[in-house]
């Protein structure tokens, strides 16, 4: 493995990219989009004590979304596109090894994706100026963004080495990205709602007269005194509830969930998360908690009302999953790269149907 040859290949890819006008148009459109998003985020978080975390996390999410949407196009045809243009074989015949070619192209695709993050930097800086953004949040969220960009770039480059037609490999890369970003959510929702448990809900209310609850003899006013109320009979309802606590792990490989789950959460003085990462993290973590299968509402009893944990308690009760999700993604990308290596190696023994070396 020669770093000089590897970088020559990356540089070759990047040079071709920076010399196309459409590339700058795309970055410009993204910058415009971020102007709008940042402006709206300033308005929508104006009610918060500190707007910084909300705006910051919104801009990071939009950047991740855009990288997911654009990366497959930038990386999904890097090998088979070169083969179609007859520029792959002249590189393969040099001293550049298959590993150097694949890694060089992967590095170039990664850097290309990171250019979008770079465009987002001024907007992230503006969000930070709004106050309250914590350094740890910045470091960790950007690190996850960088790794996610790399994972998508690797999947795109690998699929372009595995599949013969550029159009098909770009579409497949999109499908893989969609499976991670949307498929995990759909799978979670469908499977979770089809596994159900019976929930029993017991309910008893007080008997109400014209002046509020009717009281037992001798008591005139029994507001807030359940022991003096006259009670109705118990009613019992049964229903079925989805067991999302069995399938919460399906969300672990979702890029947006990974970003949320990895970033440390801080709470404002009302106990709510400070940023979008926190909100998503709490909602996802919540699904780990099994539903209460027996619930009792007693209006005229002294039994404790069912309580709901606060966001902070939810985090304390549940386990983080981002490293598992990220690990699965990295393994998937690495596995595809190894497979693509076998398919791109020269001297070639087998060729995919309908392809040629040069």
């Amino acid at each position, binding site marked *: 493995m*020669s770093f*000089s*040859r590897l970088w*020559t*290949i990356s*540089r*070759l890819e990047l*040079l*071709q990219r920076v*010399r*196309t006008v459409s590339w700058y148009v795309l970055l410009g459109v993204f910058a415009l989009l971020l102007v709008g998003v940042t402006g709206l985020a300033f308005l929508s978080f104006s009610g918060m004590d500190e707007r910084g975390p909300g705006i910051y996390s919104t801009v990071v999410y939009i950047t991740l979304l855009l990288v997911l949407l654009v990366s497959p196009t930038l990386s999904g045809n890097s090998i088979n596109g*070169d083969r179609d*243009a*007859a*520029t*792959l*074989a*002249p*590189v*393969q*015949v*040099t*001293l*550049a*090894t298959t590993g150097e070619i694949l890694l060089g192209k992967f590095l170039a695709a990664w850097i290309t994706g990171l250019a979008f993050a770079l465009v987002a930097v001024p907007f992230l800086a503006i969000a930070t100026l709004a106050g309250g953004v914590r350094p740890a949040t910045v470091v960790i969220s950007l690190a996850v963004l960088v790794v996610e960009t790399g994972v998508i770039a690797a999947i795109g480059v690998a699929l372009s080495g595995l599949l013969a037609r550029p159009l098909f490999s770009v579409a497949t890369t999109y499908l893989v990205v969609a499976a991670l970003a949307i498929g995990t959510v759909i799978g979670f929702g469908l499977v979770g709602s089809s596994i159900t448990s019976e929930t029993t809900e017991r309910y008893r209310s007080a008997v109400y007269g014209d002046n509020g609850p009717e009281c037992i003899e001798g008591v005139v006013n029994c507001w807030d005194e359940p022991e003096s109320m006259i009670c109705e009979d118990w009613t019992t309802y049964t229903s079925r509830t989805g067991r999302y606590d069995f399938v919460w792990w399906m969300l672990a490989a979702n890029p947006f969930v990974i970003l949320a789950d990895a970033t440390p959460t801080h709470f404002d003085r009302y106990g709510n998360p400070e940023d979008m990462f926190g909100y998503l993290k709490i909602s996802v973590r919540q699904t780990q908690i099994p539903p209460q299968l027996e619930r009792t509402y007693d209006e005229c009893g002294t039994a404790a009302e069912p309580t709901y944990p606060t966001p902070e308690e939810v985090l304390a009760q549940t386990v983080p999953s981002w490293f598992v999700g990220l690990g699965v993604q990295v393994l998937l990308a690495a596995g595809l790269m190894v497979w693509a290596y076998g398919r791109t190696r*020269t*001297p*070639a*023994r087998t*060729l995919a*149907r309908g392809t040629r*070396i*040069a």
Partner: protein
Amino acid sequence: MTTAGIVARGVRRSFGDVHAVRDVTLEAREGAVTGLVGPNGSGKTTLLLMLASLLAPDAGEVRIAGVDPVADPAAARAMLGWMPDALGAWGSLTARETIVTTGRLYDLDREVAQRRAAQLLQEVGLVELADAPARVLSRGQKQRLGLARALVHDPRVLLLDEPASGLDPQARIDLRLLLRRLAAEGRTILLSSHILSELEEVVDDAVFLVQGSTVSSDRIAEAARRERTWRVRLADRDAVSSVLPVAQALGRDPVHLPVDRRDVLVGFASDGDAAAGLAALVTAGLPVAEFSAATGLLEHTFLDLEGGNR
């Protein structure tokens, strides 16, 4: 003593049920230009891909300057320069950048690669277009860039797939001189073409490839011995009225002497017969303005082999 820069023995390669190369055995000498001759689809490009270390043969063995490209592709690649038939150029890079980048992939230092690029641009006649993006180059200019790219690391062995296609007459002459010079420096050059008149002017040896197999030297010698056609033109009359005097001088039946444009076509079994025929024409006092083989030796052999296969 000359050694073989390229050796192939019993090489076979198929793609699915298409047998592109069935049985190729050839040797290309160092310091010589060897032509690879064959019709479209005869397996020339597949063979060159195997020699260029890009494709592994199903059977048989290949040696590039003594190295097996399947076992040690890196060593083979350091010694061989390959120019593909499909012109792939990085459209937004300039000709100079293209050569420098390729040089860097052959582990040349940046300065060495720069110097080498300047020298090669001169050699292939692209100096004026050195800093224009490759996408504006014409087909012939791209072809020259492809040749420069193949030469950047000063290879011992050159594999050129249809190098002259798209070149104008001057560029062809330049290419011929360049190839002769490269061969004179002791390199092994194998070039394929189906434009035989062009090959004829540059090759020392020829390898014939028909339906994926090399043709044995016996078959070639036999084909070369077959009757060849010569063109005869007399200075003082047109072709039709030349037939009778030529036939009389050579003692032939005028019916067997066809006319093609300005010339009468006469078959001779060998070069010796042709020389004797010319002497007879001159002795008969005919003003012979032109007396030449209608087809080159390669073309003659090629057409004969082709015919033999049908």
